[in-house]
């Protein structure tokens, strides 16, 4: 058996112990109910099915629309289009109002790119939700009704590549946002495409002893959640109930009430179990919520709008092209960094600048704050492709591919070990170099992968036949310690202690599989350990519901586990005070004379005692109740580090790149639920391997048609594709608060692509810069290196 991580604070009773996941039994037995399982026809009498017209064209406008034949089809209840006065009067919107905190329409993040309509006459990618939606008695009738629509299209020219889209004369995709081109306005708070400009990067690069330049391409990949997007909506009078697989119930309610001008108490949103998130529901503000609500109102019946697998290719990780230059002096001190990126937004802006500006701004300020000369610029560009939305670790993966490769290349140029170069130059802001967290993470990674076996680039350690081995790594900071989550505002949690001393824990968050539910229960048990309770005495409420009384915490920022755990201590303190009060009544003393320990209530001076259970059971049988409404610690404690180390084997003849082993190291501060954390680490590598090796949406360049919106042609890693993965958990850094933990759910995917790229280079002496590293790209890169002239001619 493997050893597992070593806990810093061994006095904990529940936190940090290897033990079962709380929802293991309900999920393993197939009893957990997801959206799909609560929308059966038999469960909702009169249920109607809705579907939207999907654009067959990459760019077109509906010139004329006749819906009469569709409306006349038996079984069709409502046909709704962009021409409908209620729809036409709706505000323009955006699919990224907020990254995590509840946000109203007028305070939305990307207020300068309101580029979506609930239903529009214009379509901008093949598969775009076009201007007509139908509700009917069966999915088959809906399909037939959509076929009966008589539409005359005005076909518009389209553009797929952002470099083409940026050129003058390119077809305008959103003239209402930018009447002269396809570059989106910069972030509202920046007002410039250059978001960092410190010192003089150009001059410093010119004066540096060693300069490297890399051009990377991080292609788009789908979130690929097994559960598809969807919602079921039902009206009773003026009240709307929504069941959805989008994981932010409170923000969904905000979105619907703001778009439909409804009071908040008249919309109830419920999240059942959710079949994966990976950033997908982060863009919660989707037109489908609005048109489904209108359909259900008009029909007077419940309406289900659910995506098929093929339709669920709806938004992806943003494709980003980077140009990265680094300059250093002979002693290994990095003096300049220049980053220039093009964010391929696809048809709608969504959160592209979140990926290419916000994330990179924070990352550069945090990790490279001490480097004197820095310039970073980005342009988010529309193209006629699937929109880039949010996927696990938004923006980090893309910049890490560029910076991770550049760092590796710079180390070679300087004749340094890249681990040494990283430790010499990178530290979290306000901390001394070398950064303790970074040193621990990199040293552990190097030890576990066997870094000492790494030879000089191109020599291919452990060469056998045409196969060469190589080692590489990449590092990043993790994100979202408590201080970064302050915009969430108040965190609400409640505990009820029943008269039999069992606990109902209400720590609302959609259960998407992150393991935060188990973390919740562990933290609850830890904080209530004076009651002498066991884990099985705690019931965690698995579904979110805006009517339950507490605001949900959105499963973003990898943050829920500790955000909710941190405030539980306060609730537990309130429970303790209530036990003391009841004990004081029982023994006729003052509450402060009462102590509560390990399930016993006793008078400090006389040692008269009673068990908590007997005390509560002998009382009025009303549960103890503590509801907290607390903000998080404000102290800026910086952030810890993460790294992935890779060992690869390359067959130079066949162009095969095999990942032999990945070691993924996280400094978590405090590990709350080790099997959950290791599950994130291991599973994150599987997802990263998909992006690194196989996942990509492929277009027919002539027609703009995406060719692989299905899971046969779009390859997702199977159990056979995942090599040995060794997860390593550390507790070096510590944030503010009781646990001072830092989430890892997103950063697990950040470093593998650059680590594999660097390992490939170490094996072969050849650079791969465009993921996924499919065999054709590998062969081409190897061939180009062997014979540059042939390859140039072929291009």
């Amino acid at each position, binding site marked *: 058996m493997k050893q597992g991580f070593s806990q810093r604070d061994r006095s904990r009773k529940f936190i940090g112990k290897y033990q079962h996941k709380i929802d293991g039994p309900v999920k*393993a037995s197939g009893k957990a109910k997801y959206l799909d399982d609560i929308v059966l026809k038999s469960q909702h009498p009169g249920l109607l099915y809705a579907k939207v017209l999907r654009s067959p064209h990459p760019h077109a406008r509906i010139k004329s629309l006749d819906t009469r034949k569709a409306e006349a089809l038996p079984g069709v209840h409502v046909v709704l289009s962009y021409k409908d006065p209620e729809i036409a009067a709706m505000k323009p919107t955006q699919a990224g109002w907020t990254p995590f905190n509840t946000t109203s329409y007028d305070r939305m993040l990307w207020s300068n790119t309101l580029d979506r309509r609930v239903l529009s006459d214009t379509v901008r990618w093949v598969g775009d939700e076009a201007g007509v939606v139908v509700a009917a008695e069966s999915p088959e009738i809906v399909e037939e009704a959509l076929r009966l629509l008589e539409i005359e299209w005005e076909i518009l020219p389209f553009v797929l590549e952002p470099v083409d889209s940026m050129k003058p004369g390119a077809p305008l995709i959103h003239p209402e946002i930018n009447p002269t081109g396809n570059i989106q306005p910069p972030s509202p708070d920046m007002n410039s495409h250059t978001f960092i400009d410190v010192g003089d990067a150009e001059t410093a690069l010119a004066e540096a002893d060693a300069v490297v330049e890399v051009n990377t391409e991080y292609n788009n990949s789908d979130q690929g*959640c*097994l559960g598809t997007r969807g919602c079921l909506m039902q009206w009773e009078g003026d009240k709307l109930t929504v069941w959805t697989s989008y994981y932010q119930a409170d923000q969904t309610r905000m979105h619907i009430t703001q778009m439909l001008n409804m009071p908040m108490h008249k919309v109830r949103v419920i999240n059942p179990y959710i079949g*994966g998130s990976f950033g997908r529901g982060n863009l919660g503000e989707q037109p489908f919520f609005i048109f489904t609500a209108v359909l259900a109102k008009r029909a007077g019946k419940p309406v289900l709008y659910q995506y098929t697998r093929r339709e669920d290719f709806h938004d992806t990780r943003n494709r980003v092209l980077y140009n990265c230059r680094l300059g250093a002096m002979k002693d290994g001190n990095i003096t300049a960094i220049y980053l220039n990126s093009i964010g391929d937004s696809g048809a709608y802006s969504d959160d592209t600048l979140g990926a290419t500006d916000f994330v990179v701004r924070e990352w550069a300020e945090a990790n490279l704050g001490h480097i004197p000369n820095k310039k970073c610029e980005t342009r988010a560009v529309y193209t006629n492709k699937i929109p880039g939305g949010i996927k696990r670790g938004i923006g980090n993966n893309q910049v890490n591919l560029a910076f991770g490769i550049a760092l590796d290349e710079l180390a070679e140029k300087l004749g340094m070990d890249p681990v040494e170069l990283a430790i010499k130059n990178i530290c979290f802001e306000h901390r001394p170099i070398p950064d303790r967290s970074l040193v621990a993470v990199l040293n552990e990674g190097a030890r576990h992968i066997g870094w000492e076996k790494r030879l000089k680039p191109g020599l291919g350690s452990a060469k056998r036949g045409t196969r060469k081995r190589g080692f590489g790594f990449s590092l990043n900071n993790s994100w979202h310690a408590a201080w970064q989550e302050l915009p969430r505002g108040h965190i609400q949690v409640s505990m009820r202690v029943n008269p039999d001393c069992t606990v109902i824990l209400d720590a609302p968050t959609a259960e998407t599989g992150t393991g935060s539910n188990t973390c919740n229960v562990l933290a609850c048990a830890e904080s209530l350990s004076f009651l002498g309770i066991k884990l099985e005495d705690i019931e965690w409420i698995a579904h979110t519901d805006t009517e339950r009384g507490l605001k949900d915490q959105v499963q973003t920022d990898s943050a829920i586990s500790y955000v909710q755990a941190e405030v539980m201590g306060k609730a537990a303190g309130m429970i303790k005070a209530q036990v003391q009060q009841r004990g004081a009544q029982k023994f006729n003393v003052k509450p402060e004379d009462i102590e509560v320990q390990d399930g016993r209530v006793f008078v400090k001076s006389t040692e008269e005692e009673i068990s908590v259970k007997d005390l509560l059971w002998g009382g009025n049988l009303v549960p103890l109740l503590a509801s907290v409404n607390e903000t998080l610690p404000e102290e800026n404690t910086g952030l810890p580090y993460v790294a992935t180390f890779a060992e690869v084997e390359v067959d130079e003849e066949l162009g095969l790149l095999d990942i032999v082993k990945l070691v993924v190291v996280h400094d978590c501060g405090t590990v709350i639920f080790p099997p*959950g954390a*290791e599950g994130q680490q291991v599973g994150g590598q599987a997802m990263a391997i998909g992006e690194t090796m196989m996942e990509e949406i492929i277009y027919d360049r002539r027609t703009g048609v995406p060719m692989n919106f299905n899971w046969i042609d779009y390859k997702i890693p*199977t159990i056979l594709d995942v090599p040995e*993965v060794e997860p390593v958990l550390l507790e070096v850094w510590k944030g503010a608060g009781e646990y001072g933990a830092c989430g890892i759910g997103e950063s697990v995917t950040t470093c593998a692509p650059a680590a594999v790229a660097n390992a490939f280079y170490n094996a072969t002496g050849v650079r791969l810069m465009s993921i996924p590293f499919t065999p054709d790209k590998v062969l081409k890169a190897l061939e180009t290196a062997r014979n540059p002239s042939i390859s140039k001619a072929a291009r």
Partner: protein
Amino acid sequence: MELIRIKVNHRWSELGIGKDLQPDTTLAYLLRQRFGLTGLKVACDEGACGACTVLVDGKAILSCMTLAIEMDGHEVLTIEGLPADDHVIRAFAEQSEPGYGTAIQCGFCTPGFVMSAHGLLIENPHPTLQEVKEGLAGNLCRCGCYPAIAQAVLKAADEMAEPRREVL
């Protein structure tokens, strides 16, 4: 009306073609919508992900790729038909051995994996790690719990080492 007989989770049912099911009704649709057996999931509906896996006469099959009328005279077992103390379910639920993570995260694929694992263990009660991987290669887990899933299946196989009781 033509009738077919299907044994679902140990009990025979008679279904009328044209009434209870259509000639093109998939087994997955029938089990979920008519029998309310929602443990199996339809995540792709085209045989690419394995979430709809059930056992037919002891063999793991994709119920989204199987027509319900083909099941006339056959025995179908879904996850709901497994015993409450099923060793595979328990192994998936309890996997927490250090170094592998949990065998479940979001859980949407899990019933399919459990049924594929049963199919594998019926054919090969003592699989090697590689055989487990090959046996489960038709199931996708986007959360990427694969190493832990393999551990769970190996553990379930170990537990079955004593004379194995019948699954069906």
